[in-house]
């Protein structure tokens, strides 16, 4: 596995050119062209009707919500939205295709152009510290269009069985330009794209559930060469990290072949994750002639008569903008901003929590360091976001110290209630009274003569033992700053 950003350190004279074709299942209630439910996991062939089964006489009618969500995606990615979009028939025979043509978009897709920014925190963990990750490169898109998904097949000894539940699911196809140069970038592209899709509530885009599928086109060329090398298409990529592994392998394979003087076949290769290699798929002699023509059963869709403006209303703040804002206005770290941007529900929870206090960065720490570890569901948790605002304020403005804060947090998890009330309940009010603290300090000095001697001899760290004694005696309630002042004063007296 390559460990540097370019993934190309072993191939300094070579450049990889990579383009991705991503299919995303839209999270609508019904299918693209009929009213059957769009739901994973239903009983076989129970979510099927004359339209999605391709019965004679059936006709498609487009799902308005699927179109709206595609426009939302296009707006989020900075695409040009076509004022008039059209559907086309893509003709080929396959048992998972009920009509033996797929309704897709060819000449007039809903969206054209656009970009996906590579989020540094969405590079593989081992590459996040590299220049390439920090470069915040923008990958251009060619287009985004809508089409219908195919059925699912199961293969046995001599037969295959087909479940048509998935046939007709709305699918958004997002095609990138060949702007990617490394496996790491491809990894980051998919993660960044997914983050945008989640933000727009368009899809859950989980590759392992088949909600996002990716085909890769990759070629290599010597650094400095203008012409592209022969491209190879990779299929059967089932996870974002699988895409990375497949690209690392394939790039190395192609370079090795070209260095040996072998020609790269323009072909489709299948990635086998277990074997860790790509293999030639059974090649067809000719490229498919899809015989695209405009879908006569569907009128062209005008987006400029209300569809686009409806979509504009649902465009959320983009992940990059959100992260910038949180860092600038709330003082969270870049890493924290990326975690929040990746989880809108959590982010909404955080913003509610931070609204009631000026210690917004501290709130982020509580929620991301402590609360997140308990795997909460921000939508249903009984722990109100405002509690974290309160907690941060209490610790910051001297009500309690941070150790006590942790105690309150623990109690908050167990018995959700206002932190102020919990402080009372636990009797944790911090001791800041000089007199009371002075008594503790005298005790500490009396009980630790050795440390006192060391301190007065010049070892300034010796004071920590005395501080520890005071904190223990005071059950952690002593105000550490004051204790420090008082001890120092007494020891220098």
């Amino acid at each position, binding site marked *: 596995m390559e460990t540097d950003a370019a993934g190309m350190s072993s191939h300094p004279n070579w450049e990889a050119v990579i383009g991705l074709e991503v299919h995303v299942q839209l999270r*609508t*209630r*019904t299918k693209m*062209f*009929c*009213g*059957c*439910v769009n739901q994973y996991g239903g*009983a*076989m*062939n*129970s*979510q*099927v*009707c*004359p339209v999605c*089964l391709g019965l004679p006489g059936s006709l498609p*009618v*487009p*799902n*308005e*919500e*699927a*179109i709206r969500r595609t426009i939302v995606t296009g707006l989020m990615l900075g695409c040009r939205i076509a004022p*008039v979009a059209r559907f086309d028939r893509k003709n080929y*025979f*396959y*048992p998972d295709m009920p009509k033996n043509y797929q309704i897709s978009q060819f000449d007039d897709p809903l969206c054209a152009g656009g970009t996906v920014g590579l989020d540094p925190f969405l590079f593989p963990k081992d590459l996040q510290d590299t220049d390439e990750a920090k470069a915040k490169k923008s990958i251009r898109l060619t287009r985004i269009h809508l089409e219908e998904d195919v059925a699912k*097949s*199961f*293969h*046995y*000894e*001599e*037969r*295959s*069985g*087909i*479940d*048509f539940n998935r046939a007709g699911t709305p699918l958004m196809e997002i095609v990138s330009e060949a702007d990617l140069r490394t496996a790491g970038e491809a990894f980051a592209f998919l993660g960044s794209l997914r983050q945008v899709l989640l933000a727009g509530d368009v899809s859950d885009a989980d590759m392992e559930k088949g909600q996002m599928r990716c085909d890769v086109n990759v070629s290599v060329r010597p650094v400095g060469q203008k012409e592209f090398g022969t491209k190879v298409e990779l299929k059967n990529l089932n996870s974002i990290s699988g895409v990375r592994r497949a690209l690392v392998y394939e790039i190395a394979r192609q370079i090795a072949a070209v260095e040996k003087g072998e020609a790269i076949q323009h072909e489709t290769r*299948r990635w086998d994750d277990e074997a860790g290699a790509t293999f030639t*798929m*059974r090649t067809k002699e000719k490229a498919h*002639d899809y*015989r695209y023509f405009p879908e006569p059963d*569907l*009128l*062209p*869709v*005008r987006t400029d*008569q*209300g*569809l686009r403006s409806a979509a504009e209303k649902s465009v959320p703040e983009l992940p990059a903008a959100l992260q910038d804002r949180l860092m600038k206005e709330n003082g969270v770290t870049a890493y924290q901003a990326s975690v929040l941007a990746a989880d809108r529900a959590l982010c909404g929870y955080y913003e509610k929590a931070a609204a009631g206090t000026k210690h917004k960065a501290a709130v982020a720490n509580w929620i991301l360091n402590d609360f997140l570890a308990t795997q909460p569901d921000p939508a249903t948790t009984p722990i109100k976001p405002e509690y974290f605002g309160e907690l941060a304020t209490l610790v910051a403005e001297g009500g309690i110290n941070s150790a006590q804060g942790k105690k309150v947090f623990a109690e908050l998890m167990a018995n959700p209630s206002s932190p102020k009330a919990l402080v009372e309940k636990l009797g944790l009010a911090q001791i800041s009274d000089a007199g009371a603290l002075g008594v503790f300090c005298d005790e500490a000095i009396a009980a630790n003569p050795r440390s006192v001697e060391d301190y007065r001899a010049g070892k300034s760290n010796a004071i920590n033992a005395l501080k520890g004694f005071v904190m223990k005696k005071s059950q952690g309630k002593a105000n550490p700053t004051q204790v420090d002042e008082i001890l120092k004063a007494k020891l220098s007296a």
Partner: protein
Amino acid sequence: MSAPKLNVADVAGLARLSLTPEETSKFTAQLSQILAHMETLGQIATGDVPEVVPPAQPALRPDLPCPSLPVDVVLSNAPAHNNDLILVPKIVE
């Protein structure tokens, strides 16, 4: 339009039809005649046919579920099925 090279066997293959040699030669003769009739189209000037802009947004479908067919109805027309799946000869990639 130059004389088209209609290879009936190739085109039939695209349409998943297998023709007997007799059918192939008969169709080649008949379709060549028909295509010859269509040559006239090439002479018609179509430079400025206006693009038909659709009027209003057509009736799109709201995202509301409708009842599906019962499974037994789906399978009742299927020539081969088992365990609620519709069967075909093994699909090889």
